[in-house]
């Protein structure tokens, strides 16, 4: 595949993933499945990887720089999801505390 065609393929994939992000986002808050947020984040990571490996040509670059650039979006997405999970656990914990207090009050 020529370099021009390869770059064009990257762009088509990036555009498709961007449209997909907005389309999936329109389902949020309408009884959407739980994993939808994670899926949208994974699409963002895939886009970042396409830019790093395709446009920035890191697929041919030094391994350390490649993994640093590929790791950056993944670390951000995972940290965000970890924080979301932590928030849910705290909410659950507070609910359990309220139920226990109500039970003890009876």
């Amino acid at each position, binding site marked *: 595949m020529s370099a021009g065609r390869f*770059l064009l393929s990257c762009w088509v994939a*990036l555009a498709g993933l961007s449209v997909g992000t907005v389309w999936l986002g329109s389902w949020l808050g309408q009884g959407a499945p739980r994993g939808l947020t994670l899926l949208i984040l994974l699409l963002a990571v895939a886009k970042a990887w396409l830019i790093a490996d395709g446009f920035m040509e890191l697929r041919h670059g030094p391994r350390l720089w490649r993994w640093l650039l590929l790791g950056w979006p993944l670390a951000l997405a995972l940290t965000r999801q970890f*924080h979301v999970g932590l*928030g849910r656990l705290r909410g659950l914990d507070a609910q359990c505390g309220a139920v226990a207090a109500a039970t003890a009050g009876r």
Partner: protein
Amino acid sequence: MWFFILAELSVFAILILAFAVTQQLKPQLFAESRQLLDSSTGLAMTLSLLSAGLLAALAQERVRRGRPRQGAALLLAALLVATVYLLLKLGEYRHLLGLGLGLEHNTFFTLYWILTGFHFLHVLLGMLIFAWLAQRCLRGRYGADNPSGFESGVLYWHMVDLVWVLLFPLVYVLD
């Protein structure tokens, strides 16, 4: 150039995480405030930035093949496409300011203005770099033998794109 990119990505990572963590602390406020943003405008901005990135990458290919004039033309096309982002973003900023949703309106908009404003400044710098690279290409300063300065400029733009693809779902899409 790679060290500079890594430093820039670290600063953006701190801002993006600050946004994500604050969203968890104030989910209701963030969900309500986000509804005042238009995700289709965000999508148009994304496509504009990515298209400029494609044209810049194609320009780089031409310069490496010893065709700097074609490279300059492609870079000017990239500049034109990036202007679409610029106009859309300025339109969005004007719209929000018209509604009184400035930096001090609430936590969401404080972080929105800091995060997108910082990125906006990077896009402006990227466009200036494109213009500078294009005029140097036309003067024959870059070619198959010495493309490295050109490559560094284009790399900077891809970094701006890389940040945006993470920033876009976080600010415009995710609840």
